[in-house]
């Protein structure tokens, strides 16, 4: 076996805390990366995985310092290298791709200029040669018009394209090692798969070793050769991917794998098909794009285009789709943060647009929302009890003492008992904040709860607890639940029915089993195929499940809806509809 590209020996990184003591965030970590292999650092937030990636390049934040250990890159110790020596290594020998491509690409320079800059600096190429290499690389990351891209600016591209450009500009240097820190976390499932496929193929061709930093176990299982499992700065377990993720020995790895969402064996509680709570019929929501010049009329843009769906009492309906699909807008229309421009939304048979004054206030008490970002959804200046009590402010006939009492009772209900009511949001973890958000939403016992990606910012173990909490509260209070998410795994675990949206249109709608087991629309199929899952097998092991549903031909005379015109919703089986258009 050849010498490893990167060999980390007993690495320790310390962080200075505000009270001037030092906390170890990376503790005696050792692992190797063989040439051309992909090694994944996996762990929850606070595991030190990002710190290790940064320590290799000595790009640690100012409060952090390498305390001891070696970072052997091609036999040379980087931990003791000078800043000048590091500058020669960064970019040329070790490339790095970050989570947020908009931040790592300079918005004021063209793509071509940025790619050539590094080539000329490190490889001393003349500009014609540099240009040729850059164009070649853009072609290999499947950018459709390389010369055009060369002249374009980063903001002209979407997130997935930008991440490809980023990959191209890093790999054009043919580095021996690529450090990819959550490279696809900000991207939608389909794009995520494309980018990872390109990255895996390119690095294999060039012979670049990859250090992948990720929390996504499904993705790691599909791409990495080896896995290093971290917890609180220590290596829990390391080895071949299949061995670690599919036959884990360590308890922590098993716990993490068991926290992954999975279809409940018993299935979600089926409520008797009862009354309809919300009936959305042919609803469109239009936004106005700001025109380029002030004398032009604003351009209307349909975020939701003639969508229809119903939500029964006590039911959990999941709306899935990528960003820009309109799933969030539907939820916002339900809680009246935006208004529909046509169509009708009825709540218990009453038209929402007709609501105003008192009836609107009473409607607002019956619908509540849980937001995605646990760090921006709570007012930092208020105590938790005050935050939750505000949910009762518009309820008639309550004294403030009564509101406070109910708020504290609800906080205890979501697992924040006792003096938590007097604390402030900044004293809580992400999961605890999301509990407060949930308490605020249900303290007035609403009939409808809209949750927009409520668990996507959380670690899997915390995510599992929050999903459990949602299920328990729904059992107890009986609210209907509109769950908006891009995470098909989570949806599979909790939804009764699923709606798939794409560019403002509903493409498929059905019960969870219908959509997951016999998807019809090609888009749903692709979405499911792009989301590998790790699930438990009968014999205590785990397996990587990739959805491989076969395409079913549409009814004669029709094609599956693919944009343009108006779709026809066709019922393939009772309760399962798919969007078609005339062939």
């Amino acid at each position, binding site marked *: 076996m050849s010498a490893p590209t990167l060999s980390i020996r007993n690495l320790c990184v310390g962080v200075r805390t505000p009270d001037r003591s030092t906390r170890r965030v990376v503790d005696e970590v050792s692992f190797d990366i063989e040439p051309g292999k992909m090694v994944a650092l996996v762990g929850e937030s606070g595991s030190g995985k990002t710190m290790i990636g940064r320590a290799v390049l000595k790009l640690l934040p100012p409060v952090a310092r390498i305390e001891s250990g070696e970072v052997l890159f091609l036999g040379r110790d980087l931990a003791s290298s000078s800043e000048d020596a590091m500058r020669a290594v960064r970019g040329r020998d070790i490339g790095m791709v970050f989570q947020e491509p908009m931040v790592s690409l300079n918005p004021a320079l063209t793509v071509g200029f940025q790619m050539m800059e590094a080539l000329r600096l490190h490889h001393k190429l003349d500009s014609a040669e540099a240009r040729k290499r850059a164009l070649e690389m853009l072609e290999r990351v499947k950018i459709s018009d390389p010369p055009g891209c060369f002249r374009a600016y980063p903001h002209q591209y979407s997130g997935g394209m930008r991440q490809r450009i980023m990959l191209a500009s890093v790999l054009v240097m043919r580095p021996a090692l690529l450090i990819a820190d959550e490279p696809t976390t900000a991207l939608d499932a389909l794009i995520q798969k494309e980018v990872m496929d390109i990255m895996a193929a390119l690095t294999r061709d060039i012979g670049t070793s990859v250090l992948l930093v990720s929390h996504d176990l499904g993705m790691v299982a599909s791409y990495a050769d080896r896995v290093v499992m971290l917890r609180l700065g220590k290596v829990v377990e390391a080895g071949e991917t299949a061995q670690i993720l599919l036959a884990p020995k360590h308890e922590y790895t098993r716990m993490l794998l068991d926290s992954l969402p999975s279809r409940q064996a018993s299935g979600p509680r089926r409520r008797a098909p009862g009354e309809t709570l919300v009936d959305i019929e042919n609803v469109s929501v239009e936004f106005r794009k700001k025109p380029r010049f002030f004398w032009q009329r604003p351009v209307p843009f349909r975020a939701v285009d003639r969508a229809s769906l119903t939500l029964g009492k006590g039911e959990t309906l999941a709306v899935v789709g990528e960003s820009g699909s309109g799933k969030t807008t539907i939820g916002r229309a339900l809680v009246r*943060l935006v208004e529909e421009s046509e169509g009708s939304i009825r709540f218990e048979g009453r038209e929402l647009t007709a609501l105003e004054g008192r009836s609107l206030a009473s409607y607002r008490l019956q619908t509540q929302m849980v*937001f995605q970002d646990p760090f*921006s*959804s*709570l*007012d930092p200046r208020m105590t938790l009890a005050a935050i939750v009590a505000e949910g009762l402010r*518009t309820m008639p006939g309550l004294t403030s003492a009564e509101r406070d009492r109910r708020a504290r009772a609800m906080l205890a209900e979501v697992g924040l008992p006792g003096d938590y009511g007097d604390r402030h949001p900044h004293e809580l973890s992400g999961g605890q904040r999301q509990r407060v958000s949930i308490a*605020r939403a249900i303290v007035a016992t609403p009939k409808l709860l809209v949750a927009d990606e409520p668990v996507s910012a959380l670690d899997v173990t915390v995510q599992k607890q929050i999903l459990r909490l949602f299920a328990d509260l729904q059992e107890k209070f009986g609210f209907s639940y509109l769950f908006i998410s891009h995470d098909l795994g989570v949806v599979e675990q909790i939804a009764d029915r699923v709606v798939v949206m794409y560019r403002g249109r509903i493409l498929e709608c059905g019960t969870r089993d219908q959509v997951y087991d016999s998807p019809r629309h090609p888009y749903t199929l692709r979405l499911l195929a792009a989301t590998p899952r790790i699930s438990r097998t009968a014999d205590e092991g785990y397996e990587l499940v990739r959805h491989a549903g076969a395409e079913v031909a549409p009814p004669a005379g029709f094609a599956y809806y693919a944009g343009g015109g108006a779709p026809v919703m066709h019922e393939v089986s009772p309760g399962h509809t798919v969007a078609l258009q005339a062939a």
Partner: protein
Amino acid sequence: MKSRFAPALAALFRRPNAIAGGTLLLLMLVAAIVGHVYTPYDPVENDLMTRLKAPSSAHWLGTDEWGRDVLSRLLFGAGVSMSISFFTVLAAVGAGTLLGAATGYFGGWFERVAMAILDALLAFPSLIMALGMMTVFGPSRAGVIAALSLAYMPSVARVVRSSVLSVREKEYVEASRVMGNSEPFTMFRHVLPNCLAPIIVLATALFGWALLAESALSFLGLGVPPPASSWGGMLSDSRNYVAQAPWLALVPGISISVTLLGINLFGDALRDQFDPRMKNL
């Protein structure tokens, strides 16, 4: 509210900046109060027998060209100058906050029109604008306050608007709307309190500017009308006697500088205290 306020105040006065600045400000406040209750001599009474006397045991800080006791005028002027600054800041910050919050929160054509007017006002250097207004109002204490607060209001509105624009996008503001709270309630309960830090910092800076601007206006003869004393007025009167009686310029000059130092130190401490990231430093 009460339970949070006391520990915050205690934490504030653990900062060296706050202690030093607070002490200086307290000193000036005491001087201002004393000046309105008791002064060794009548601050406006002329005594031509004791013109331009150097500091002595009878007149600790000397006398001016009309034989008035400089210490008495300094103490009396402290109240005049500081009250002008105080009310200027109060009016400028109050009006600027309301206007900035309204434009930032509601947007639309109201924002465009209001911001266009404010930007036009901002284009004038504030002292020049205050000068222009003083010629309309005529020299008086109220006139100075009105002119200065109008001159400073646009910059406050700008600062408040930009911070309202960023807070407005937070999810807790949307959450408040979903809970059925009215727009004004959301504004005063969630948006403005979270814009407080820059407002407080700006207010302390404004206090210093107003003190200097009052001095400048009085220096140009457009400030507080004589014979009542203000620090700026004293400075302005001293200019003909700098060589013969340097204490006439030094005494109000040092007082203004010390007050500014106090304000700036205190403002720094307040800024740190209200910035959550600085809380534990």
